[in-house]
């Protein structure tokens, strides 16, 4: 039964992409959606059995690689971590499939699209249910491939192709780290099996090994650092985040599926899965927490000024991933997973309802050309409002139960890292609420800036697009409350088999009993953010001229350009790394080496030299009799002199004479 969860999405992909010509577009839509829904239903059973009833199970499908020590089967484990991810992935994916039926109705390649969605789901399921690092890596690379195919789905658009390449390449940088970590894991443990590695982890602590010619590197630190580096790329943390906002070039359901709920969570999932290893390396954990909190703040601040409806949500995803990452870095993996599940719900909701707005407005994505849609699109408004309130952590919605816990844990961690993460997280919460409400104001509440034609044709999405939104909105409101005790309740045995936290790192109780006034800081920040966006946007309410003067002032303009240029990260990456590498690739390795010295000393140069030598040799044959007779005489004289020199023991000189002779012969033109 468990393998059916993997089999159904694969069949969905197989039937739609390989047999799509025979079953038709509507057949593809129906089959792929049905397969994912079936997988979701089965994963509900799996959730009941593995997570709720606490009987984790492992399924060995077949053997894959079998060489002496290196035995890696196709094996899948279904513990509480896996099945939670299964629920998230299958749930969001089936809703996105359902949504895409209508959203991609007029697209000529809809059947290919549905197949790619199923393919992505399949690889993601392989990733989360794998029982060893190699199968995990198979899924990891698979979702990279599927994200490439989905981002460049409209492959005739140059921007989509470039974004897909960017996503693929930036992810490959992280994947390199993951490969290195897998190599070092095998070097250390002689196996890639999760259970063996995790049970041996504490024995490997504080032992050193030689890796990549670095002697005496700390074993577990190297492993976890490279795992984190892999997660850095996939989960779009600061530094390697540059692909995520550009990946919005794909269709909106793609953004909802792979850039909100699933693909970017793969890196986090890996860190949560390897919690045993990370717990042994406090240094790496601090790095994870610092990078996560930086990402949370950075992405949220860039999100403030984005004018593209989808990019706002993309940066919010990046920021929320930072939240999860620093929850991991503070050793609270279950909270990170809880936030991951919740975030999947409300981010998919936000993306899909943004898709409704875009769909209703003839594919207009610019926030500045929207406004006043409240009367026209009330359902989308409600959905975005619910999603945004859940996102900013409004009390008693889903986001509140995970996001505020993340911040409380950071507050209760008595280290510099904890403090840093807490304050950056609070600032990020401030920015999150600012841009969420800015989005709502600019799209729905303000006076309209749209064209008349857009507004006249604006319409609410049909029921098949709204239905997934209903489910997601329901989840965004209630899921956090319902599952709070299961995931992060005091002493919950939910993750006892899959996630480990050292007890000295555990500050859940301190967080629970922290002073109320400190716990309210994020909420106050959130309220402040919402109010500020209200005042800045609705100039009519406050004094128009004051805010206008402020907006055109030096400080605001420089801040604005700093934020619109994304903290200059793209610029830095382009100018310092990409252009340098491209230049190196063209000037040095291509022009100087490949087409230069290697060709000159290689076949091209030697054949050209031989050609010119033979030309000059054959030039001696002028056809003139007196030339021939001169050559005869000269040669005889030369041989005569040469032999005389030999007899006088002038070895070197006679060789020089020979060289001179050959040079003069070959340089005759």
């Amino acid at each position, binding site marked *: 039964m468990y393998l059916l969860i993997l089999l159904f999405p694969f069949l969905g992909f197989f039937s739609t992409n390989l047999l799509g010509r025979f079953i038709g577009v509507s057949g593809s839509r129906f089959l792929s959606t049905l397969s994912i829904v079936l997988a979701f239903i089965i994963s509900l059973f799996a959730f009941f059995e593995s997570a709720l009833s606490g009987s984790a199970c492992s399924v060995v499908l077949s053997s894959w690689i079998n060489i002496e020590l290196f035995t890696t089967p196709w094996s899948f484990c279904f513990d509480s971590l896996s099945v939670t991810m299964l629920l998230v992935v299958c749930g969001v994916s089936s809703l996105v499939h359902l949504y895409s039926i209508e959203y991609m109705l007029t697209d000529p390649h809809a059947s290919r699209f549905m197949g790619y969605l199923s393919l992505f789901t399949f690889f993601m399921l392989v990733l989360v249910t794998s029982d060893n690092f190699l199968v995990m890596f198979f899924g990891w690379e698979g979702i990279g491939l599927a994200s490439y195919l989905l981002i460049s789905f409209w492959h005739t658009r140059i921007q989509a192709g470039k974004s897909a390449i960017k996503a693929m390449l930036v992810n490959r940088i992280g994947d390199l780290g993951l490969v290195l970590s897998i190599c070092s894991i095998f070097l250390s443990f002689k196996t890639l099996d999760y259970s063996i590695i995790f049970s041996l982890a504490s024995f490997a602590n504080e032992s050193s090994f030689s890796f990549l010619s670095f002697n005496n590197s700390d074993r577990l630190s190297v492993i976890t650092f490279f795992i984190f580096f892999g997660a850095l790329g996939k989960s779009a943390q600061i530094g390697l985040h540059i692909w995520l906002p550009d990946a919005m070039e794909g269709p909106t359901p793609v953004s909802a599926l792979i850039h909100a709920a699933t693909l970017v969570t793969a890196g986090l999932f890996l860190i949560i899965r390897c919690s045993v290893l990370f717990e042994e390396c406090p240094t790496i954990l601090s790095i994870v927490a610092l990078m996560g909190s930086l990402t949370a703040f950075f992405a949220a601040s860039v999100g403030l000024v984005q004018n593209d409806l989808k990019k706002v949500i993309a940066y919010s995803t990046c920021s929320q991933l930072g939240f999860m990452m620093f929850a991991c870095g503070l050793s609270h993996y279950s909270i990170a997973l809880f936030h991951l599940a919740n975030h999947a719900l409300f981010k998919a909701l936000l993306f899909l309802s943004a898709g409704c707005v875009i769909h209703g407005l003839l594919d207009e994505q610019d926030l500045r050309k929207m406004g006043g849609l409240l009367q026209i699109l009330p359902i989308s408004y409600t959905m975005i409002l619910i999603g945004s309130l859940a996102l900013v952590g409004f009390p008693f919605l889903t986001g509140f139960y995970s996001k505020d816990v993340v911040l409380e844990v950071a507050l209760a961690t008595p280290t510099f890292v904890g403090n840093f993460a807490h304050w950056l997280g609070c600032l990020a919460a401030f920015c999150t609420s600012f841009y969420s409400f800015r989005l709502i104001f600019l799209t729905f509440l303000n006076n309209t800036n749209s064209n008349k034609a857009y507004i006249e044709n604006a319409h609410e999405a049909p029921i098949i697009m709204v239905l997934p939104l209903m489910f997601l909105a329901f989840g965004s409101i209630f899921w956090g409350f319902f599952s709070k005790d299961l995931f992060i309740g005091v002493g919950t045995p939910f993750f006892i088999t899959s996630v480990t936290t050292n007890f000295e790192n555990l500050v859940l109780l301190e967080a629970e009993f922290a002073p109320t006034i400190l716990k309210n800081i994020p909420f106050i920040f959130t309220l402040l953010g919402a109010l500020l966006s209200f005042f800045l946007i609705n100039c009519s309410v406050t004094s128009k001229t004051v805010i206008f003067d402020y907006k055109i002032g030096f400080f605001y303009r420089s801040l604005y350009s700093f934020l619109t240029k994304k903290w200059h990260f793209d610029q830095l990456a382009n100018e310092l790394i990409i252009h340098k590498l491209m230049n190196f690739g063209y000037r040095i390795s291509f022009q100087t080496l490949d087409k230069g010295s290697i060709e000159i000393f290689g076949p091209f140069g030697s054949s050209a030299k031989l050609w010119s030598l033979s030309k000059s*040799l*054959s*030039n*001696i*044959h*002028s*056809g*003139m*009799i*007196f030339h021939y*007779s*001169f050559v005869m*005489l000269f040669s005889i004289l030369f041989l005569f002199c040469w032999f005389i020199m030999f007899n006088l023991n002038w070895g070197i000189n006679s060789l020089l004479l020979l060289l001179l002779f050959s040079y003069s012969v070959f340089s005759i033109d």
Partner: protein
Amino acid sequence: MDLLTFIIIPTITFFIGVSGIIFNKKNAILILISVELMLLAINFIFLVSSVYLDDRIGQIFALLILTVAAAESSIGLGLLVVYYRLQGSVSIESINLMRG
């Protein structure tokens, strides 16, 4: 007159023949004459050394070379006549059809 004189004179004659071949760029008949001159010089050396060594073989070779030289000049003149019929001149500057 000692032996050296009898050796040097044909040697000089031989190199005159050689330079006649090398430096002559006009007339093909001059080449034939130069070849004859070279053969004559060699013949002379054969005869001189035959007398000096008091050996008959040199004179036999000299006679043979005479016949060979006669045959060679007749064939060479025949080739020149054929060439003249084709080309209308015997200038060796125009004999360059077999360029490399």
